[in-house]
């Protein structure tokens, strides 16, 4: 597979007129046409719209100053694109055409980027494997019988298989970092509030964040420069100044203290993943970083806390899908005794429109919020969430970043875990706590298993300290250059 050049190289070539945005866009669309049937990365390819947009970029008088001039971007299908259907991989939104753009989409387009398509994902971003898509699973380019991870699986596949140089995903409990790890990419979940979520179809509002997928840390940093910043349309968006992410990319690890929660990462991790993680820690130390043993005593409770909080919020957010203002409406019941009132329509629409995992989470969330159980489950989970945040506050008094494997196993086979939701949830053990604490976290490639499946290293940082994470990730990446390996697409 011939990978795309770096985002800066594409941008420079288009800015200087060596290539046109239309040429770059055609290349991306050709690769999608060639590879998407096998990998199912895209739900909707925006061929005509993308070429028209690229032609506009070529015609712009300010083309030479656009930070993402002509850069093709794949966008997860839970981000609204005006006039282009946005499904969240759900039957209930199969024909939904948003009347507005998500802020991240407008920002990308204002910077000269070209949205080439909407990527596959778990329905409403609920899942860790991309198997919960109403449009079928996306496939891992490193081993097409395996999952690419989720929920932003299609975005990871699009970049890993060279269909787009970069992509956007959303991350509520690991949905950018885990597929990035399993597909051999860089994936960044920014600090809560760093990137506007206006136009993101909400799953769990106190946890959701939007972030980039890229092949290198530099590409992720370039994209973040456009994505980050205040937006009046999102009441949770922070007004913190946006730093220069590119200038943060030094190769110097010497001042860096990295915490390793040994007790947490010693259990239940695949031996090959564990070996790659230990090698990565050695490399970080070899590069000058100081490793510090730390404890995150409440991190082991992060999974149940996450699944109580996230499902409660989801049950509330998804109440809007009722067959009235947009989306599917179920046909009226027929036959003797059939009822055709409003309540029946709600129930039938939601039963037909939502898939099994979404219904499961709505049921769980509704239960934990219901009278008599609220204090025991939801309130209790929010209190333990405070303890998890405090764990990190204590850790960050001593260290600058916390290192863990991103996911305890490499990509598993499609169908292998789909009958046991709890087992699926347990895999999110290293990713969910960054969402619960609102902290930035990055996954970067740190090697391969013996079966040549990618492994990811996760670094979690202080709130709004993306620069330190990017710097550490960049310095490690320069030593190892795992990103130069690409899947054999046959």
């Amino acid at each position, binding site marked *: 597979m011939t990978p795309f050049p770096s985002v800066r190289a594409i941008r420079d070539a288009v800015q200087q007129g060596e290539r046109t945005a239309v040429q770059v866009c055609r290349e991306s669309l050709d690769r999608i046409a060639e590879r998407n049937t096998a990998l199912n990365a895209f739900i909707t390819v925006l061929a005509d719209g993308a070429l028209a947009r690229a032609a506009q970029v070529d015609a712009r008088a300010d083309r030479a100053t656009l930070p993402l001039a002509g850069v093709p971007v794949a966008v997860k299908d839970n981000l609204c694109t005006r006039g282009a259907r946005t499904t969240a991989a759900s039957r209930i939104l199969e024909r*939904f055409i948003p009347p507005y753009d998500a802020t991240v989409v407008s920002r990308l387009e204002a910077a000269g980027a070209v949205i080439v398509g909407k990527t596959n994902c778990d329905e409403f971003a609920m899942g860790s494997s991309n198997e919960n898509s109403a449009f079928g699973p996306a496939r891992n380019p490193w081993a097409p019988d395996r999952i690419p991870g989720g929920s932003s699986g299609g975005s990871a596949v699009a970049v890993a298989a060279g269909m787009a140089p970069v992509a956007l995903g959303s991350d509520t409990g690991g949905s950018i970092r885990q597929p990035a790890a399993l597909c051999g990419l860089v994936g960044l979940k920014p600090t809560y509030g760093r990137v506007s979520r206006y136009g993101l179809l909400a799953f769990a509002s106190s946890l959701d964040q939007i972030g980039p997928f890229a092949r290198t840390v530099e590409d992720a940093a370039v994209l973040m420069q456009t994505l980050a910043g205040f937006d009046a349309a999102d009441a949770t968006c922070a007004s913190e100044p946006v730093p220069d992410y590119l200038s943060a990319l030094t190769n110097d690890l010497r001042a860096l203290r990295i915490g390793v929660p040994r007790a947490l990462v010693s259990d239940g991790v695949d031996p090959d993943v564990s070996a790659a993680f230990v090698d990565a820690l050695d490399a970080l130390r070899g590069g000058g970083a100081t490793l510090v043993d730390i404890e995150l005593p409440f991190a082991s409770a992060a999974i149940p806390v996450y699944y*109580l909080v996230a499902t409660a919020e989801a049950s509330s957010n998804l109440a809007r899908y009722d067959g*009235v*203002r947009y989306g599917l409406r179920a046909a009226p019941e027929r036959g003797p005794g059939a009822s055709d009132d409003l309540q029946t329509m709600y129930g039938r629409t*939601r039963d037909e429109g939502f898939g*099994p995992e979404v*219904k499961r989470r*709505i049921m769980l969330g509704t239960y934990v919020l219901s009278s008599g159980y609220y204090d025991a489950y939801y309130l209790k989970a929010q209190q*333990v969430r405070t303890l998890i945040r405090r764990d990190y506050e204590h850790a960050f008094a001593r260290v600058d970043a916390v290192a863990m494997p991103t996911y305890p196993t490499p990509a598993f086979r499609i169908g292998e875990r789909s009958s046991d*939701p709890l087992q699926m949830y347990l895999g999110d053990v290293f990713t969910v706590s960054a969402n619960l604490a609102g902290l930035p976290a990055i996954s970067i490639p740190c090697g391969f298993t013996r079966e040549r499946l990618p492994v990811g290293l996760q670094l979690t940082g202080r709130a709004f300290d993306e620069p330190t994470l990017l710097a550490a990730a960049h310095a490690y990446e320069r030593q190892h250059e795992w990103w130069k390996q690409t899947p054999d697409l046959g």
Partner: protein
Amino acid sequence: MPARFSRSDIEKVAALAQLRLDEDEIELYARQLDDILAYAVQVQNIDTTGIPPTATVLARHGADRPDEPAPCLDRETALANAPDGNVEAGFFKVPRVIG
């Protein structure tokens, strides 16, 4: 805490969630919600005396602003995705509410 979900428990939750589940789904979710909540018992065993809940991680609320009208979707656009909309009258139509 209830260790087992009865059929009527699941039906009650489904009614609250506006989901019309079939027989297989009721049986499946009864079992799976049991498994998941049994696992969540470890949260209930943590001492949280005096610990405030975290509803949001935002350090400060930066969204206060004057309440001023701003452009919004016009009626036709707002109704464009409605399964049963009436643009001229400006309505979302719904099935009958009262029997």
